[in-house]
């Protein structure tokens, strides 16, 4: 891969496949997935459960090993990229450590990566401010609401210098009102930090609202059925979801999901 390609393409997958050997036989979690994530993209992966969207994210993170095809992250293998700490991962559950205060939770990756005390304090303050959790530094996770806990876990993923943020249904367990709020916050945060974000969701409005690119997937075997480049402007107030443009994209996503379910119409 050339240097020019490296600076624009963050993730590049070619014919990627992953088959799990389970007691009930082989399960094809990913089949022939090819796509690019460019620097600064906000890419959503949407599809019903079992479509391989989480698996794909875990392959990028080197938490699962592909059994076919090729994938590079920042021009490196996922394992090399992981060792260089090139991405931050936000899981569906906040996965905060209950024995650590919020600031200590954010400090965890910084401790592991050997940041100095002063640097740690600086970054904790900066990222907690970024996710609007200023003043909650000394609280323990159980003292915070679910939405606040998930924001703390986002702060933790932002604390170190990874340009790629992998988010696996981070707001899936939250109620609609909190989710709307956090979606708007996430867009602001993305605009301020200029990170590349890969975002797994099963909500159509969420995917359309957030993304510059929507990857529609379908199950058995997990595969990509449509890739939609969003035509929505960068500035997105919440009521953009009522506009015809938004509804048109949402319609196309829904069509893509429907196509994935009937086996005659695979793209």
């Amino acid at each position, binding site marked *: 891969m050339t240097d020019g390609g490296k600076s624009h393409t963050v993730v590049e997958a070619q014919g990627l496949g992953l088959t799990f050997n389970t007691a009930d036989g082989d399960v094809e979690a990913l089949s022939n997935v090819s796509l690019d994530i460019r620097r600064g993209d906000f890419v959503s992966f949407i599809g019903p459960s079992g479509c391989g969207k989480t698996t794909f994210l875990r392959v990028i993170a080197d938490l699962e090993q592909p059994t076919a095809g090729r994938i590079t992250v920042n021009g490196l293998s996922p394992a090399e990229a992981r060792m260089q700490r090139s991405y931050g991962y936000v899981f569906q559950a906040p*996965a905060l450590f209950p024995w650590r205060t919020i600031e200590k939770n954010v400090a965890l990756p910084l401790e592991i990566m050997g940041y100095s005390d002063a640097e740690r304090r600086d970054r904790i303050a900066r990222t907690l401010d970024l996710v609007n959790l200023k003043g909650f530094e000394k609280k323990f996770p159980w003292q915070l609401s679910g939405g606040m806990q998930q924001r703390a876990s986002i702060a933790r993923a932002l604390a170190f210098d990874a340009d790629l943020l992998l988010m696996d249904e981070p707001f899936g367990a939250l109620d609609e009102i909190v989710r709307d709020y956090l979606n708007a916050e996430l867009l602001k945060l993305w605009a301020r930090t200029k990170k590349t974000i890969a975002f797994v969701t099963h909500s159509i409005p969420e995917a359309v609202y957030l993304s510059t690119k929507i990857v529609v997937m379908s199950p058995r075997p997990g595969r990509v059925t449509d890739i939609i480049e969003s035509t929505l402007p960068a500035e997105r107030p919440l009521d953009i979801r009522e506009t015809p443009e938004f509804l048109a994209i949402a319609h196309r996503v829904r069509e893509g999901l429907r196509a994935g379910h009937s086996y005659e119409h695979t793209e």
Partner: protein
Amino acid sequence: MISAQRQSNIGPILAVVAALIVLWYLGAVGMNWGIQSDSYQRAGTTGVSFSQQLSDVLSQEKPILPAPHQVLAEFWKNTVQQAVTSKKSLVYHGWITLSATLLGFAIGTLFGIGLAVFIVHNAAMDRSLMPWIIASQTVPILAIAPMVIVVLNAVGISGLVPKALISTYLSFFPVVVGMVTGFRSPEALQLDLMRTYNASRVQVFFKVRWPTALPFLFTSMKVGVAASLVGAIVGELPAGGGSGIGARLLAGSYYGQTIQIWAALMAAALLAGALIASVGFAERVTNRLLGVRA
């Protein structure tokens, strides 16, 4: 919330204690009544009133079952009213037993934690060691203890260490079993997270596995410290004429000094209670530091 719960516990506990004391007195009277009648007969005493016999029954020198006030009096006499250096002092004997218990418990806990670390990090260790660890606890300690004492004595080690080793033998087991479970109890998500940071095994151990395992450690230590005390007492039995609560128990049983036995048992029970309470205290302090929800 917690303190309110604790307060409401006191009533029921006192009720149970009162019931036990009543039962104990009934038992003491019932079991010793016949002996008292026999001794009147031998002495040719007749016409003893019921209240006289009752009072005699409850102040026998070697009753089958001493009454609570006799045990308490003996305990009082051998603790508060004796110099702690005296061979008769239960404080002296208690300290001998306690020092062996604490040494054995400390070694056992460290040994148990060490074994658990190996077992969790090495699959071969897991398969090869675990069966032996479990087998070690099926051996009756009463059979092994005298051998340990005799063998170590033959190589010139006597006194505190052999007893402590028996304590170790009993106390490492709950710790190793508890800590293996504890070290394995971090959530998959937490371990995945550490992997995304490219954390080393040592970092994963100290930042995730150890804090997750702490509650298991304290639970195991409560079991382990009680087992340690039993080990130290058992270790004192074959020593013969030595010191410690175990030696007191043995001496008491040689000479039929039931009151002395019961007083020594009471000392052992108080020790066990104090040891478990200390572990509980350490647990509460740790929990507060770790922000565990009260």
